[in-house]
């Protein structure tokens, strides 16, 4: 086993680990942004029931949701160059980071596409018809009516996916990426203070996850401000404001707030 517990190492490692957070967040941000693009492209054939593409997107979804991400990482890192060699593309000089981002983007893309599909489906068809009846084009109806509501609806799921992605990036060290977990491995092995390293690591992941969750929750409340209910016909606003302030103050209050108000 390692060295005896020493509190100083804990602080020391926190300081040493924080800079590598940049790498972790870079992977998360890139893969989520690319994943959103992929998710939308994959969701469209499902939403519009386009025959062949729909089958293809289903195959993609089952693969990325049905296999562990670690396997996906290895498959892309070791397998993709082999396949590309067949068409005379040499990717041996491409840094591992690109493969990591690609894998996480495709992985998140699968879940994000499910999220998009569900959220768009949740905006009732009647509003789209009303938009057409008002004279909007399909594009206007989608961007002005469906998208804002779908975004608000999907935010809790999106928040979960981003946090899951953050935690999944800890596997990127297996391809030698020096993100949070990768760095902590080296620190731990060098000093043999395993417990301190992993405690600092856990603290950092927790703080970031918690921060993200709170942030998304705030955005969600803002986007869902139209989902208020009539409390009584006369001047409900005072009472509601007071209630909302109370919800905002109590930290443990999750997403149930909206429903509870009814």
């Amino acid at each position, binding site marked *: 086993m390692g060295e005896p517990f020493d509190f100083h190492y804990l602080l020391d490692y926190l300081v040493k680990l924080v800079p590598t957070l940049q790498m972790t967040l870079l992977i998360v941000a890139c893969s989520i942004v690319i994943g959103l693009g992929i998710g939308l492209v994959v969701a469209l054939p499902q939403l519009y029931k386009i025959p062949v593409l729909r089958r293809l997107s289903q195959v993609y979804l089952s693969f990325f949701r049905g296999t562990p991400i670690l396997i996906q990482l290895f498959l892309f890192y070791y397998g993709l160059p082999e396949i590309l060699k067949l068409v005379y593309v040499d990717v041996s000089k491409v840094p591992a980071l690109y493969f990591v981002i690609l894998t996480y983007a495709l992985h998140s893309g699968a879940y994000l596409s499910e999220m998009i599909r569900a959220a768009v489906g949740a905006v009732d068809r009647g509003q789209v018809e009303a938009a057409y009846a008002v*004279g909007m084009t399909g594009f206007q109806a989608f961007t002005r009516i469906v998208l*804002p509501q779908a975004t608000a609806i999907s935010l809790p799921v999106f928040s979960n996916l981003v946090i899951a992605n953050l935690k999944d990036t800890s596997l990127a060290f297996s391809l030698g990426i020096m993100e949070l977990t990768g760095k902590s491995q080296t620190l731990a092995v060098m000093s043999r203070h395993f417990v301190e390293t992993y405690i600092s690591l856990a603290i950092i992941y927790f703080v970031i996850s918690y921060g993200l969750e709170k942030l998304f929750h705030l955005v969600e409340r803002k986007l869902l401000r*139209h989902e*208020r209910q009539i409390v009584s016909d006369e001047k409900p606003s005072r009472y509601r404001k007071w209630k909302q302030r109370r919800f905002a103050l109590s930290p443990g209050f999750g997403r149930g707030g909206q429903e509870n108000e009814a």
Partner: protein
Amino acid sequence: MIKLTQIRKSFGRNEVLKGIDLTVEKGEVVAILGPSGSGKTTLLRCINYLEKPNEGRIVIDDFSVQCRRPDKKAIHTLRQKTAMVFQQYNLFKHKTALENVMEGLFVVKKISKDEARIRSIELLEKVGLGNKLDSYPSELSGGQQQRVGIARALALNPEVILFDEPTSALDPELVGEVLAVIRKIAKEGITMIIVTHEMGFAQDVASHVVFMDEGVIVEQGKPNELFTSPKEERTKQFLKRITPEAAYSI
């Protein structure tokens, strides 16, 4: 003037509209009656192309659409010349009453935001919601939501407003306020086609009544003629079943 000629619509094998001919003069209020499943909603939806008719012709003044293969631009024009008030209101839930009315004005008609706002406020005042401009649909009662729906339809200055059972999703005590608004705008000479089960309302607001059954127009005429002395057997039976008293208790 609106003129429908030989409108046909099938869903798969089920022929829902079997050649509808209907002419509506400018300023007329037409009530469409008929049993459930007779194709009333489908007819209205065909008029603004929410449903694609298989055949027929829609003429609004000097604008005409051949339904069999219309171009996209014709559909767009048709939708701008018509407006629809839905049974389920279908307000944009993430927008306030005011924004709901303004939306079409500045997105579709490209009117400046300020002007659109002024015009929308006027319309909301007309339907009695001058004090609810900033309320979201979830904060409004059914009757209030439907009145926003009517204001939204009026905003586009359409040649015709199509109403699909505008009061049938409402609690009985809220029906009156919506009917009063429709009565009021009927008096202003706006052309309207209303599908309704409110016989009393049809009788005193409509200038023309159409009775539909199984995808055809069985009989049409002035309200007092059709209600008091219907000629067709199917019309008589339908009217016997839905007396004005019964209609109000739905």
